[in-house]
């Protein structure tokens, strides 16, 4: 009897929990592919169009919209850092910020610590290219010296010297990249590293969305 009750209780909790989630559906910009494709050859490349189906709490929203962005590059080559959280995902000229070559980062200040369930990321997607050494970390420390949780890392050869990552590299498209944060991670700051891409050595960002509450 006791066992049956336990099973029913567990199922009810699971059902209730399921009922309180929703599938993360992104608003996707128009594809703007242009130019001559450059061969993308990387050892840990995932097939195109393989964004996972991610469930997030029903009341989770994009808490990055309009939030302050800082970066390792004090003077981006083109564009402003605000473009990363302005809600515009187009790849057109004037819609992205581009940082210098080498390992660079951008950081979003969510203004208060929040539970983060998923992150959506659009690097430059007007050409099929893959960004290297993409590392995404969450922390309450703005300097990322303590309490750092890495939620994505595709640096398969540890070239960024932050540890070998097991995540796959992906080819940029207008659909963006969804990074599931499961279990959720609490933090105020989210930092995104990259180290150039398969077309050139710079680091461009069009938009970042952080789903949390």
């Amino acid at each position, binding site marked *: 009897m006791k066992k049956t009750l336990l099973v029913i209780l567990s199922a009810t909790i699971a059902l209730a929990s399921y009922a309180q989630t929703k599938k993360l559906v992104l608003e996707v910009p*128009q*594809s*703007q*592919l*242009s*130019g*001559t*494709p*450059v*061969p993308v050859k990387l050892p840990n490349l995932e097939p195109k169009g393989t964004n996972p189906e991610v469930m997030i709490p029903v009341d989770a929203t994009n808490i990055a919209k309009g939030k302050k962005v800082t970066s390792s590059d004090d*003077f981006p*080559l*083109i*564009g402003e850092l605000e473009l990363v959280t302005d809600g515009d995902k*187009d790849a*057109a*000229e*004037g*819609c992205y910020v*581009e940082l*210098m*070559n080498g390992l660079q980062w951008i950081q979003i200040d969510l203004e208060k610590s929040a539970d983060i369930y998923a992150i959506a990321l659009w690097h430059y997607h007007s050409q099929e290219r893959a960004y290297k050494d993409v590392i995404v970390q969450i922390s309450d420390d703005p300097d990322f010296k303590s309490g750092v949780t890495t939620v994505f890392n595709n640096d398969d050869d540890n070239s960024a010297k932050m540890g070998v990552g097991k995540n796959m590299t992906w080819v940029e498209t207008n659909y963006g990249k969804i990074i599931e944060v499961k279990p959720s991670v609490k933090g105020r700051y989210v930092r995104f590293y990259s180290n150039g891409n398969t077309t*050139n*050595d710079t680091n461009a960002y069009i938009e970042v969305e952080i789903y949390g509450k």
Partner: protein
Amino acid sequence: MNAITRRSFLKTAAVAGSGLVFGANLVRAQQNKDEVLDIALIGFGAQGRVLFESIMKLPNLRFRAICDLRPAQRRYVRLWVKKTLKQDVTEYVDFNEMIAKEHTENVKNGKKGLDGVFIATPDFWHSPMTCACLEAGINVYCEKMMSDTKEGARKMVKAMQKSGKLLQIGHQRKSNPRYIYAREKLIKGAEICGQLTNANGQWNRAVTTDLTCPKKLELPKEVLEKYGYKDMHQFLNWRWYKGLGRGPISDLGAHQMDIFGWFFDARPKSIMASGSVDFYKDKDWYDNVMCIIQYDTFQKRNARVFYQVLTTTSAGGGYFEQFMGTDGAVKMSENPALTKIYKENGADKAKWDSYVANGLIQKSADPAPSKTAIADARESKALDTYAMPDNLFPTDPTDPSKSAPIHLPHVLNFLDSIRGKAKLTCDGAHAFEAEAAVFKAVDAIEAKKELYFEESDFVA
């Protein structure tokens, strides 16, 4: 920036030119004694950026100036050069002012002018800018097409000849070691294809949207009009408009139609072409073009080329040039993944085995031919596939783990020609000859009949 040495690049170029295979890991950090060249760039759009990224990987350059109508583009170049080379770049809107201040006045005052200018503007500016630079005594690397008009291209060749300065046109395959190898070693040297009878090429792209930019980045109307554009849309999408460019058959076709004549070592004899605006109804230039061109090849035989540029479907095909003969076929592309060599089933096996044994080609790692039943008895069975030797293309000077940018050998050829260490692989006169088929393709579409080439089509 990790600098590869001039010596290792020279080694690369020389080895590639001689058709020998060289390793991917080039010697780095050797002493470099090359002359420092003062350079400038006019036009920082999509193609200007491609050139810039190659330029910035090469040592012994002083990047003096950037000329572009857009402040953000100028700032981009200035910041990049400042951050990486610690050099100050001067920004210009007007190319005549740039030539005057960076070159003419300096030379007059006994100071160093510009050694070379790279031009990557819309086609209709190529001729006036190139001529102005050459007449001022500056060597020029200008993107293809030479001009949107035959007359403009002719003026460029004449300015080159009159000035005695160098004019390199951006048909970059001419400096690509893989293409040089295929031409000299496979097609002409071993005549691996047997009798060349046909070639086939294409550049297919899926439907694209117009380029746009936010209102805040639009150029003032008076600036646009001063420099020949009706509005910002036309400025960003100039390739589609008459008077500014010559459409996809020029943008894309120029690269490949050049290759047919180069590999056949012949000028085209005749061309028939069909094209129209099928999809992009608000554009001037044909979005789909198909051509048939005939050549008398170096084998003194007729060969026929089918070439198409489609901008309404990629059809999974990409871009390539394929040379087909009685013994085999060589399919070339700037993308190595699309490059293949096929042996005809009736070709001499012992001869092809010797090609492999001698390292001329290698067996392809492709899967074995399909065992699917042949539907028609007249169908040829699947062919054995081969590949070119690995590592024909140089490594990235700043990262030996990857290939150099695709335009880098052509840029380097220009710079080394200025230094007197190389000969241009595509000077203005040869480019004029190579682009004759592109100009004639448009004429043939409009004439709706086969047109024959004359000497005046090839000589400026």
